[in-house]
Each structure stands twice: as C-alpha cells, then as structure tokens.
C-alpha cells in the first residue's frame, strides 16, 4: 500500500468502532483498536533503513490538483521519527486505556473514534508535504483534541478546558494558515520542498517576516509556548490516556515539528532565531518555576511539559544559527538541533510514562491531589519504580536518558553565550542563567512529584479508595516506556544513528549529504568541563530547594495567576463588550435605524461629490422658466410646509392631497398628459385611504398635537434634502449621452403602429415592466384582503395589547 494511504487507515478504522462496540459486548473495544497503531508502527519501522541512508519516500494522492493542493506523504528522517512516536506511543496508550476505561461505564465508541481520528490527523501533520493539507490535518488535531478533552462532557471543567484549548489552538491555527498562504503567494507553490529550494528569493520578499511570525503563532499556540501555554493545564481534565498521548507525546510536539520542518526556509532570518530561542527559553523558565506550585499530579506534569517543550524549542532556535555561521559543520550549533531531537524522543518516553503513573495513582487511590497522597511506595512498588525512572530522567539524573539530553542542552546554551551574531552579546549570559535556574526548578518539581506521592506518611483516611497496586495491563505500557528511558541511556548512539541523525539531516539539509555524515556521538561522560559543574550545581541547589520546599512554597501565593485571568478577562470583555455594543446601537426604535441610514447616505453621497470634485452646475442647457410653473411650485411648497406645521392630521392629509394635485399640474405643464391623468386619479384614491386610516385612529391619540421640533431630526432632514439637490444638479449638468428617445419617436408609428409614445412604451417596447407592475397591484390587493380578513392572532393569547 502506498504510504499516503497509511495516514487514513486509523480514520477508516474509526468507522468500524461503533459497530464493534455495539455488537461485541463482552470484549473491551480497545483490543480491536490496538491492532491499528501496532500494525502501522511495524510498517513505519520497516522504513527506518531507507531514511538512515538519507533517502525519502514520497507518495501522492490527488485532491485538488488544479489549485496545487494534494495529499503528499513525504517520509524522511524527521517525519518518520514523529510517525513512529505517534504509532508507538499510540499503541501503548491504547493498551493502557483498555485497563483505564471501564467497558461498561464509559462510552468507549466515542473515545476510540476520537482517538483514531486524532491519530490520522497527527500522521497527516507530520507527513504532509503540502502546506494546505498540513493545515487541514492541523485543524483536525485541534478538533479531535477538543473532543477528547471534553470526553466527560457532563463535567463543567472538562467543557471549560476543551473550549479554552480549542479557542487558543484554533486562533493560532488560523494565523498559521495566513502564514502558509503568504508562503504560497511568495513561492507560487504549497510544496514545502519546493519552497525550501527557493529560500533566497523568499527571504528578500517583504512578506517574508510577516509569514514567519504568523507561522510561529501556529507553532507556539499548539506547542503551548509562553504566553499561550495556559490551555495545557486546563486540558488535564481529559482522561489520563489522552493527556499522556496528546498533551505530552504527540500533539503538543506538532508545533516543534512545524518549527523543525520549516527551519530550512525561515532560519535565514534573525527574527526567527530570536523568537524561537527566546520564547523557548522563557517558556522553559516559566513552566519550571510554576510546576512546583501545583497541587494536582497532572497539573505538575502539564507545567513540566510546557517547560520541556520550551527547552526543545530553544534548542531548535539555537540549531537555526548553524545557517549563519561559517564552517557550521564544526560548530556547536549543529549540535543543538541534534540535542533538540534527542530530547524530544526522551521527553516522549519519560513524560508518557509519568502521565500513565499519574493515571494509575488516580485510578487506584481515587485522587490526584498531592496533599492527600504519600507513602505509596510500599503499596505500589512497581508504579513507584516506574515513576522514579521517569522523574529522575526528567530531573536529568544518570543513568537515565534525560541526563544525556540535559548535558547536550547545557552545551548548546553555553555556546550561545560565545555567539555574537545579531547583537547577541551580553544577552548570551542571561540565557545561561535562565536555562540553569530552569534546570534547578526542573530538578525540584521532579523530586516533588515523585516523593510527595510515594514517600512520606501514608494517609489512608484521606483517600477515597483503598490504595493497591495497579493491574499488570496498566503497568505494562508505563513499564515499556520506563525501559526505553534506561535503554536509551546505555545505547544512545544506536538511537542516534537510527532516528536522530536522519531527522537532523532534514532540519539542516545544507550541512550534510547523508545522515551518516553527522559525526556526533553521545557519551555520558565528558570530563570535568563547565557542563559538569553546572550539573553538579543543579543537583546541589535543587536538592537544597527540595529539602526546604515547604518553607518557600508560600511565596507562590504572592504571584497572581495573571495569564489565566487575562484570558478570562478577555473572554468576558469580548462577550459583554459585544453585548453592550449591540445594545447601544440596536435600540429597537425604527427612528434610530432611519437616522443611521440617512446619516450614512448623506456622508457617503456628499463625501463622494466633494472628494471626486463632481459638483458642477450647468446653466447652459436648462429650459426656460415659465410663470405658471412658478405659481404651481409656490403652491406645492406651501402645501408641503403646511404638512410639517399642521396641528391636526386632517390638515396634513388634505395638504398631502394638495401636493399631489400640484404635482399633477406640474405634469400638465411639463407636457405629460398620461402622468397627469394617473396622478389625479391615484391622488384622489390615496387621500380617501388616508382619510379612512385617520377615521379609525384610536381614541387615545385623538388629542392632536403639533409635531415637536427636534433639531437633530431637522438637521438630518436638511442634509438629505441638500444631498438630493446636489446630486440632481450635478447629474443634470454632466449628461454623458443623448437620450435614446429619438428611436422611440421615429419608430413608434412605423414599427408599433401607435401614436401615443408613452403608452406604446408601456405596452409594447417595455411591456414586461407593465406586466409586473400589474402583479404588484394584484399582490397588494390580495395582501390587503388577507390583512383584513385573516384574524389568526385572535385565537391565541393576546400579548400585544398593552
């Protein structure tokens, strides 16, 4: 099967899940699901020899070829590493979930459908070679993550966390789409490989920096970087298998993947290096600082994930510097990218196992509150061992893999301080301080997590359940990950050759021909160099801080949780603000809306006249003024004025009649006999109708009042009048073409056989108008009949009478 179809295998399998769940009751649905990631893992593992040689596998599925949008699966070292993480940890998580979720109480069909959907989305993100397809899968991860966080949808906190993560990641995702589209505009292609090929032209484009920042928004929101990390702790309301899978090992690394994948395009820019390294380091510092504040096991792990993602991000940023230094192959910056990938693998192993342990503790004791836990070491010895491996690795202790990657991290950061490109000088030492303090706090929270859960005094009276060791099936996946943690420490170079070097070759393709050119070997012992003393310092100070934890932890209470309140405040403000805005301008009075309409009309029309310099008066082509016309006009104006000042409505109605008859007279004067006839008849009928309406006025409004003068209304009315006059004058003065009426005059007798041109136009030349005008009258007649005859509302409760 072509590798591009493998992406869709979990999605297709998801269709079967509900049937399996409904039909096969006595077997946990997870067992069927387990086969899929396992099979995919084996298939992907078979590609490792290909990528080790630096080759890649491309397969394509046409989607919208006319727009250059296709599903292209591009498997090189980087995407294969991620695919293996996704399917490998996916298998372990499914196995874990079989024991974690009860088959009788939980709606498993939902759970596994969402999970498989997520797996497809994630495989699509890491393998897509087309930016638009990548975006599609990217949003699918957001949606499936939303569904998984809100899995227990009857809980308020779950829905809150799901919504928060959705809003933040979709916000970033949409900005990222903007960045992708800009890239597409600049490079005339959505293919990542083709874009990498035209890096120099892209970098000189003025849109380049904008595209860069927009893409980083997507990566930072997804990978929970500062200040967008706030959704991750709230996403811990998801079932623990989900937290272990999505929020430690896979989805939150999508942002890292994106940064790594696009490094060959963007690394030429110093903005990229600054943002990625700076934000990454600050996130590392911030996350580690607040992890020890948390009281919930999963919250500690969430902040720790934030912090470790920041670490990897900063290493990727440092790795981008390799694009700027001469002789980069010998510099330490190629080392940074290597360290980033190495730590990414390590983090996936130890954080996955730690989440599973947190889930086991929750499952077997009934609480995740670290204040209630303690002394579980003798009750849950296996869980304790696995937790110890994970925590020590996270803290950076030997003999676990975290130690190796932390050493490499320190080496890379030390190298940053010697670096003085892009006015880095001086700031480099600040970076070291940040990184070192963050490492100290990492040590503290790792120990805090481990010992406050498993050591100390057992408090059985505070636990909802009688604590006991977890079933074997739950411990197995955590144990496998723990085993990897130790294994990688002892055979780092096997892992390096098989997975890390091909991935690094994808991030820094210009440095190496094949992955085997990378001459980095990982060794646990470097001798007595700066890194060694820094590590010793971390252990000493970290140990001291952990020992005195209870004494200084109160300092956390002084720090306000400002970023979450900022988010809540923004949501509150936007909701109430929008409400207030609507209430302010949607008053419910027709008059208000008319004022808006008229004001806009005046502003738009007179504004255009002024700006376009369009106002002209033409005195040349005007016709002569006759005395009769003036008399009629005076009557017309007098009648109109009378309407405005009339005390009684009857006067107003009569005056309107007078206006109508003066208009008819004007028609007579201006040689329009048919118009005059119609106008006379219709005005008569209209006045009769007005009188009818007047006659039926309700008693309460019979006490007639003169209209009260309102300056605002008068000003608007005056503005409308002036606008109409100006438009009339200007358009009369600037006639572009002569009338087509000459044609009617010449052909009315010969072609249509009539003499009255107006009538012939109405029924012959432009008969369609007349047809529909007749229809209008018919509809009006039927409508009036209906209004008078139909009285449906009478039967209902009469709410309208006040």
């Amino acid at each position, binding site marked *: 099967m072509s590798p591009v179809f493998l992406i869709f295998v979990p999605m297709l399998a998801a269709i079967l899940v509900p049937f399996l769940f409904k039909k096969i009751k006595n077997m946990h649905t997870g067992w069927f699901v387990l086969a899929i990631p396992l099979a995919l893992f084996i298939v992907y593992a078979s590609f490792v020899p290909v990528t080790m040689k630096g080759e890649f596998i491309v397969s394509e599925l046409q989607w919208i070829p006319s727009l250059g949008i296709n599903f292209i699966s591009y498997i090189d070292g980087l995407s294969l590493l991620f695919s293996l993480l996704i399917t490998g940890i996916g298998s372990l998580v499914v196995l874990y979930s079989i024991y974690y979720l009860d088959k009788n109480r939980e709606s498993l069909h939902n759970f596994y459908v969402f999970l498989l959907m997520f797996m497809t989305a994630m495989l699509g993100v890491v393998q897509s070679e087309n930016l638009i397809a990548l975006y599609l899968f990217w949003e699918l991860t957001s949606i499936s993550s939303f569904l998984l966080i809100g899995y227990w949808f009857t809980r308020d906190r779950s829905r809150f966390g799901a919504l928060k993560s959705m809003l933040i990641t979709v916000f970033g995702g949409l900005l990222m789409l903007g960045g992708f589209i800009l890239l597409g505009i600049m490079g005339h292609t959505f293919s990542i490989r083709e874009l990498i090929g035209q890096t120099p032209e892209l970098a000189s484009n003025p849109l380049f920096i904008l595209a860069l920042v927009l893409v980083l928004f997507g990566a930072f929101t997804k990978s929970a970087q500062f200040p967008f990390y706030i959704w991750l702790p709230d996403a811990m309301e998801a079932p623990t298998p989900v937290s272990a899978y999505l929020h430690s090992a896979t989805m939150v690394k999508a942002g890292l993947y994106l940064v790594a994948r696009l490094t060959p395009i963007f690394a030429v820019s110093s903005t990229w290096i600054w943002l990625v390294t700076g934000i990454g380091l600050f996130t590392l510092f911030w996350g580690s600082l607040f992890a020890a504040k948390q009281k919930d096991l999963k919250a500690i792990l969430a902040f720790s994930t934030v912090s470790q993602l920041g670490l990897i991000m900063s290493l990727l940023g440092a790795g981008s510097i390799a694009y700027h230094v001469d002789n980069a192959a010998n510099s330490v910056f190629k080392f940074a990218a290597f360290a980033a990938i190495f730590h990414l693998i390590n983090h996936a192993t130890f954080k996955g196992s730690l989440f599973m342990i947190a889930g086991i503790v929750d499952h077997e004791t009934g609480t995740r509150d670290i204040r209630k836990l303690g002394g579980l070491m003798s009750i849950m010895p296996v869980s304790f061992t696995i937790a110890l491996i994970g925590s020590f690795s996270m803290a950076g202790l030997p003999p676990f893999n975290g130690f190796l990657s932390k050493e490499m991290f320190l080496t890379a950061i030390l190298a940053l301080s010697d670096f003085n490109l892009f006015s880095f000088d001086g700031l480099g030492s600040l970076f070291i301080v940040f990184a070192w303090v963050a490492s100290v706090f990492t040590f503290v929270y790792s120990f805090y997590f481990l010992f406050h859960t498993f050591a100390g005094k057992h408090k059985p009276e505070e636990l909802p359940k009688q604590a006991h060791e977890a079933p074997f099936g739950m411990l197995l996946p955590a144990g496998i990950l723990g085993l990897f943690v130790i294994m990688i420490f002892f055979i780092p170079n096997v892992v390096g050759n098989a997975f890390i070097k091909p991935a690094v070759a994808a991030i820094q393709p210009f440095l190496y021909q094949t992955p085997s050119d990378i001459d980095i070997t990982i060794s646990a012992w470097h001798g007595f160099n700066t890194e060694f003393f820094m590590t010793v310092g971390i252990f000493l100070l970290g140990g001291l801080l952990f020992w005195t934890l209870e004494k200084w932890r109160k300092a956390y209470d002084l720090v306000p949780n400002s970023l979450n309140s900022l988010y809540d405040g923004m949501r509150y403000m936007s909701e109430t603000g929008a409400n207030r805005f609507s209430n302010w301008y949607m008053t*419910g009075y027709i*008059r208000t809306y*008319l*004022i808006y309409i008229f004001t806009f009309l005046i502003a738009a029309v007179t504004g255009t006249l002024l700006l376009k310099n369009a106002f002209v*008066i033409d005195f040349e082509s*005007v016709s002569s*003024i006759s005395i009769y*016309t*003036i008399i009629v*006009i005076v009557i*017309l104006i007098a009648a*109109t004025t009378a309407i405005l000042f009339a005390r009684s*409505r009857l006067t107003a109605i009569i005056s*309107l009649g007078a206006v109508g008859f003066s*208009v008819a007279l004007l028609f007579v004067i201006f*040689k329009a*006999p*048919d*118009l005059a006839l*119609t106008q006379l008849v*219709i005005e008569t*009928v*209209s006045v009769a*109708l*007005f009188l*009818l*309406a007047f006659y039926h*006025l*309700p008693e309460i409004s019979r006490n007639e009042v003169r209209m009260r003068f*309102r300056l605002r*209304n008068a000003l*608007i*009315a005056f503005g*409308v*009048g*002036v606008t*109409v*006059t100006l438009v*009339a*004058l200007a358009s009369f003065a600037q006639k572009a073409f002569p*009338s*087509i*009426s000459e044609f*009617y*005059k010449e052909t009315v*007798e010969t072609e249509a056989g009539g*003499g009255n*041109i*107006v009538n012939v136009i*109405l029924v012959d030349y432009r008969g369609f*108008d007349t047809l529909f*005008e007749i229809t*209008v*009258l018919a*509809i009006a007649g039927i409508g009036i009949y209906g*209004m008078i005859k139909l009285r449906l*509302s009478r039967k209902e409760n009469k709410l*309208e*009478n*006040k």
Partner: protein
Amino acid sequence: MEIIMAFVIGFLFMAATYLFLTKSLLRVIIGTGLISHGAHLLILTMGGLGGKIPPVLTNGAANGDYADPLPQALILTAIVISFGVTAFILVLAYRAYQELGTDNMDMLKGDDNNE
C-alpha cells in the same frame, strides 16, 4: 427651470425625511407619499423639461420638439407601484391601530418580555 426643480425636489425630500423621523405612524406614511412625489419629479426633471409638445404623434410627424417619453413611462410605472405599496401600508397601519390601539412608533417597540 431644472435648477429650480432640483431645489423643489430637495425640499420635498427634506420634508419627507423629517416626517419619517416623527413618532406618529400616519405622519410617517404621509412622508412616504411626499418622497414618492419627490422621486417622480426627480425622474421627470432629469429627463429634461425642455419639450414643447406632449409625446403624442400628431399626423405622424416624428421630428417635433417632443417631451422625452421614456421618463414619463418610467414615472407612470412608479406611480402605480407606489400607490399599491402606499395602499398596503395604510391598511397595515389601520390594522395596527385596530390590534394594538396606538399609532405611536415609540410604543410599537418590543421589550424583553414582549417581542
């Protein structure tokens, strides 16, 4: 003549707009009557008011100084349509008086309990 007419039409529009902004429903409808008159006169004026003979051929002479027939045909259509609409609105207002017992536009606003 056209320039004077432009001012007359502007005055009609002004009066109509002022009536639209009042409270009484009947006055609003009177405003629609005025604005239709204004619009009809505007069409006629824009066609030019210079014609000396009504657009009816006498003895088949096609070359006289006729008034422009096209605007007249357009106005005729517009008059009929505005009449239909005015009649409809008037009966609607009449029904509103019957049902709601008020012609005050401010009282025709729904509130939270009664929308």
